[in-house]
Structure formats: structure tokens, C-alpha cells
């Protein structure tokens, strides 16, 4: 093997080196990726004071006044003053009238039998936090405790209301919260006619699943319907949006968000903290009425709360394609009741769509056998000159009315599909913990026993041997033979749902080719039998 390696040409060696380094870096970055956690350290009072400053924005867009930055010097103890119990979640409200923590109770979310906490435990911006643009009021607001009209709110099937009150110099701040069983709520903030300008935050993003390959940050839907995203570490300056439909802080699977159904929308300010992470606020004067949701980014659930919220599910730049793909997958899921089988069906659908584009190439594959001797002759003649060889191959194909190539378009079309499935598997909470058959119990993570990647490699090998391929470049031929092996390793760390897609796609294409070969052979035999029958 090593002796052979010396004989390989330079390009081939570079390729092998690239493949090996890829094999190393992909698992490496997967296992050793630095997971961004919200800072857990207790910050000094000065730092905290800065953190609790209201965003510096013009107090009114027309007047163009700039409000002074408000500061809070001390922070009161953060006791829990109320608990909201739903059948799917548990929510705690602290003495500053904010949501201190949310726990998801569904079996799917449990981590080591414990309810899943969504928010960073310390010193981050909490949902429902209020900051005043007036510095003295802001300082006072962070010093005084709220009181709640109920200690425990239990939600069965009907919404329940909880009122939080804070007595401030000269006025009273009330937050009237109506919780629904699904984790969404309506909120009314009143400052009893004090004409105070304040900022209300849906909170910093959840930290339950802060994988760095997923989008973490703030997603906002502008008044025109455009989606605006600000990723963690990428917030450069304060940004103001008039008439926003929703503003959501998201991690891979979870979100805390505000939205309004009324057309005038929300006036949103996206500020930044010391780590350049975005901090979203809704700005209001005197009073504010909006709705919110905190929990998993479940597509159907978000849709049932308010259809526009489905845009919170962010798949990166391929979203425009990944979203319809998810809808198709979801439709197939409803049809068969299992995400694994839905992926198999999806593969079938893709194959059927591409069939007319590849069919003729597959048929011509058979004719290749007839022209094989001539092909060999040409290959001998133009050895070492791939360009000339290509020209003469094309001429030969034309002469015999057979072009065995599948074409670039079907290949190119498969790439966005593949990538979109990757993003959907990665970002859709529905596929987290989704099982298939036998050993596959989570399609969104790698196959723990490496069976699917090996099957995938085997199917690829089989496919290669079934479809005769003519190479114009001997180097390419060598690489090609190693491909099933390279791909097997390459796919080891991929979500098993994706490997499943690739594997099933290979199997279908093998089956398709075999079927075409069989029918053509039968036809040929029939054609061969006929003339002899006629001549008698």
C-alpha cells in the first residue's frame, strides 16, 4: 500500500490528504466544539448596573430626543414570588416581576429524569424585565420588589390570570398576565397614567440547547414581513424596528418571544450586551399590551398560537427551501406516523421527481455494453489526453444514439435538498428524539452503532459496480473507487436521519437501474425472437 502511494501522482496525494484531514476535523469539531454558555459568574454590582441600563434610544421618533442611560446600583434578592403550573411547563416569577425560570415537563424534554430548565441561571436578561428610560425611576424599579396576587397558579384547560404589582414613587406598575395551557400568555403592562417610557424584554435566549452549529440569537419579523436575524456575538449597534410582528430570542430548539396580532405591531429595540449578544426590548409609553410564548419551537404549536410565529423556526440561509421541505416531511409524517418512514417516503418523492431527468441516461447505460469494444479502442488511443478522449466519447455516443450520462441538473438539484434536510434534522424540535426502527432511536443525532453509515457505504459500493462508468481521467477513477469508504467515514458523525436519506436514495437508484436493465433485456429478447419468427 505504501509503495503504491509513492507511485500516485501529486493531485491524487493532495486529494487523499484533504480527505484525511476532513475525516479528522469533522469529528473533532463535533465533539470538541466550544459550547457557548451564558456567563455563570456572579457579576459585580457595577457590571450589573451597566447591564440593567435601559437601551439608549430616542424617546420618541418624532422628537428625536435621546433619553439618558438609566442605572441601577443594587439588585434586590431574587426570591420567587409566584409559580405557574401547567401540564407541559412550570414557570417561576421572581421578586422583580420577571420570569426567573421555565421548566419543560414533557417526557421528550426530560434530561436524566429531570424537568428541563430553559433559561440561564444567573445574571442574564430575563423575560418580562422592565427598564425605564428615566434613570432615577429605573434605579428605584430595580430596588423595589413586586408583589403577586397569587402564589400558585394552576392551569388545567382554561387560561388563568396573575397580576404582579410594583409600587414606585408616584405611580404603580402592574403586569397582568394571562397564561394559556400551551405556554403562551397575554400581557398588559400599566404604569397608572404616569406617562413613563419603558422597555419590556422577552428575555435573553434560552440556553437549554446552545449548540454552536445552530442559530442562536434574536429573530424578528419586520412590518413588511422580512425576517431579520441577529446572531450572538454579532450585535454591532442598537437597532430600532417599527411595527415588528414578533421578536424572539432563540437557541437551537427553544424560544422566548413577544408578538402582537394587531397590525400596528411593536416598536422593538435590539440592544447589545458586553459579549455583543443581542438583547431585545419592546419600547412603550405608559402602557403596553402584547402576547408572548416561552417553550419549544414546535411548528404546529406555534402555528396554532399565531400562524405568523412559524417564521421563528430558523434554518439559516436555506430557510426559504427548508421550510417547505419541512412542511412536506410533516405532511408525510401525518400520513405514516413515524419520522423515519417519512424520510423514506420523502426520498421516494425526490426520486420520482428526478426520474424523467435521469431515465434516459439509465436506459442508455445498457447500450454501453454494445459499444464497449469501440470505447476501449478510443480510450487506448487518447490515453493521457482527457479532452480529446471526451470529444471522441461524445461523438461515439451520438453515433449510437446513446448518452449514458445522467446530467448535471439532477445532481445539482439534489444538493439543496440534501442540505435542507440536514438543516431540518438539525433545527426541528419535532425530529429530536424521533425514532425509526430497531436501533435508531433519535434521527437527529449520529447512529451510535455506525450501522447506517456502513449500510450507506455498502449501497454506494454496490451502485458503483452496477453502473459501468467510463472515466476520462485515470486519477479520478482511483479516487472514485475509494469513495464509498471515504463517505462512510464522512457520514459517521452526521445525523442518522440524513444518512438514512442518502442510504435509501442509493437503494432506490439501484432498484431503478436493476428494473430498467431487466425490462430492457426482456424487450431485447422479445425483439430478437420476433424477426426469426417472421422469417419462417
Amino acid at each position, binding site marked *: 500500500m505504501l509503495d503504491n502511494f509513492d507511485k500516485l501522482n501529486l493531485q491524487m496525494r493532495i486529494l487523499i490528504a484533504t480527505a484525511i484531514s476532513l475525516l479528522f476535523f469533522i469529528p473533532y469539531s463535533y465533539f470538541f466544539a466550544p459550547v457557548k454558555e451564558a456567563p455563570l459568574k456572579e457579576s459585580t454590582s457595577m457590571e450589573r448596573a451597566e447591564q440593567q441600563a435601559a437601551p439608549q434610544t430616542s424617546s420618541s421618533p418624532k422628537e428625536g430626543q435621546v433619553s439618558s442611560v438609566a442605572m441601577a446600583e443594587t439588585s434586590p434578592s431574587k426570591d420567587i414570588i409566584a409559580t405557574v403550573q401547567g401540564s407541559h411547563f412550570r414557570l417561576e416569577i421572581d421578586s422583580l416581576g420577571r420570569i426567573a425560570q421555565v421548566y419543560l415537563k414533557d417526557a421528550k424534554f426530560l434530561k436524566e429524569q429531570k424537568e428541563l430548565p430553559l433559561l440561564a441561571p444567573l445574571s442574564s436578561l430575563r423575560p418580562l424585565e422592565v427598564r425605564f428610560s428615566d434613570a432615577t425611576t429605573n434605579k428605584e424599579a430595580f430596588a423595589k420588589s413586586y408583589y403577586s396576587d397569587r402564589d400558585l397558579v394552576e392551569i388545567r384547560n382554561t387560561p388563568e390570570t396573575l397580576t404582579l404589582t410594583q409600587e414606585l414613587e408616584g405611580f404603580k406598575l402592574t403586569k397582568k398576565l394571562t397564561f394559556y395551557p400551551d405556554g403562551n400568555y397575554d400581557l398588559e403592562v400599566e404604569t397608572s397614567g404616569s406617562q413613563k417610557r419603558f422597555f419590556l424584554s422577552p428575555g435573553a435566549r434560552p440556553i437549554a440547547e446552545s449548540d454552536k452549529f445552530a442559530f442562536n440569537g434574536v429573530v424578528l419579523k419586520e412590518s413588511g414581513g422580512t425576517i431579520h436575524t441577529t446572531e450572538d456575538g454579532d450585535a454591532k449597534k442598537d437597532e430600532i424596528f417599527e411595527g415588528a410582528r414578533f421578536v424572539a430570542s432563540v437557541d437551537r430548539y427553544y424560544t422566548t418571544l413577544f408578538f402582537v396580532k394587531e397590525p400596528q405591531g411593536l416598536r422593538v429595540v435590539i440592544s447589545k450586551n458586553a459579549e455583543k449578544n443581542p438583547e431585545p426590548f419592546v419600547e412603550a409609553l405608559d402602557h403596553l399590551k402584547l402576547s408572548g410564548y416561552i417553550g419549544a419551537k414546535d411548528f404546529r404549536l406555534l402555528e396554532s398560537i399565531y400562524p405568523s410565529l412559524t417564521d421563528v423556526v430558523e434554518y439559516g440561509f436555506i430557510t426559504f427551501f427548508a421550510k417547505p421541505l419541512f412542511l412536506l416531511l410533516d405532511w408525510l409524517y401525518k400520513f405514516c406516523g413515524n419520522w423515519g418512514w417519512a424520510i423514506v417516503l420523502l426520498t421516494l418523492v425526490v426520486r420520482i421527481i428526478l426520474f424523467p431527468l*435521469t431515465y434516459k441516461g439509465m436506459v442508455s447505460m445498457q447500450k454501453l455494453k454494445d459499444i464497449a469494444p469501440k470505447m476501449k479502442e478510443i480510450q487506448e488511443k487518447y490515453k493521457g489526453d482527457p479532452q480529446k478522449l*471526451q470529444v471522441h466519447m*461524445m461523438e461515439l455516443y*451520438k453515433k449510437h444514439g446513446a448518452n449514458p*450520462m445522467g*446530467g*448535471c441538473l439532477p445532481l445539482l438539484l439534489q444538493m439543496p435538498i440534501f442540505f435542507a434536510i440536514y438543516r431540518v434534522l438539525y433545527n426541528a424540535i419535532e425530529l429530536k428524539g424521533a425514532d425509526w426502527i430497531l436501533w435508531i432511536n433519535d434521527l437527529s443525532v449520529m447512529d451510535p452503532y455506525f450501522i447506517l453509515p456502513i449500510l450507506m457505504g455498502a449501497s454506494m459500493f454496490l451502485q458503483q459496480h452496477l453502473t459501468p462508468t467510463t*472515466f476520462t481521467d485515470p486519477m479520478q477513477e482511483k479516487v472514485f473507487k475509494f*469513495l464509498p469508504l471515504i463517505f462512510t467515514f464522512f457520514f459517521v458523525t452526521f445525523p442518522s436521519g440524513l444518512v438514512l436519506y442518502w442510504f435509501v436514495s442509493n437503494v432506490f437508484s439501484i432498484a431503478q437501474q436493476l428494473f430498467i436493465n431487466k425490462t430492457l433485456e426482456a424487450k431485447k429478447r422479445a425483439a430478437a425472437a420476433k424477426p426469426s419468427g417472421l422469417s419462417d
Partner: protein
Amino acid sequence: MRTLLIGMIWVYQKVISPLKRPTCRYYPSCSEYALWLFSYSNFWYALLFSLRRILRCNSLFEGGIDYPIISKRITPIFGSPRLIKVWLVPLCPQKDWSAKGKFYLIKSMKVVQC
């Protein structure tokens, strides 16, 4: 933009293309076709025709030999050639040399040093 695209096609040809089976139904292959067009014609024209080529590269079309066509105004210089990179073969005999003519763009199989 143009250099970037040419660079991307070059990387594709050297790194990605060898990793898949040859699939193109044409000569020159889609990537070669695009590379020639981007090197020797207007950016938008090259983009449009490269896309058209890729869209036609499937079983619904014949395939075969298909050279890119470019329009160019030719100023004749009389003398012996020094280096031949491409051949411009006119689609029809050209009478008026001051007008733009249409040419097949055919890359020389080997760069000929004269």
C-alpha cells in the same frame, strides 16, 4: 465578481468534481463551458448561458458536443500567431468586420506556442 466565479469553478473542477462520477452529457462539460464563457464574455451573458446549459444537462436533452457562442467585434491584425489559446469559429461568413459577429468559442486542445 467574475474572477471570484472563475476561481470557484476552478476549485470545483479540482476538488469537488473528482469526487463524483462523471455525469455531464456534453462536451465541453458544464463547468468547462461556464469557465470559457466567464473568461471570454460579458458577465451576465456568461451567467445566463451557463445556467441555460446546466438546465439542459439532463435526460430530456440529447447532449453531445455543444460549444459556447460569443459575440465579438474582431479587429484583424495581420502577422504570424505567437500563442493560440482559443479558436473563434464564425457561425456564418463575416462580411462587415466593423460589426459584432457571432463565434463558437473553442478552446485549443493544447496551448500552441508558435
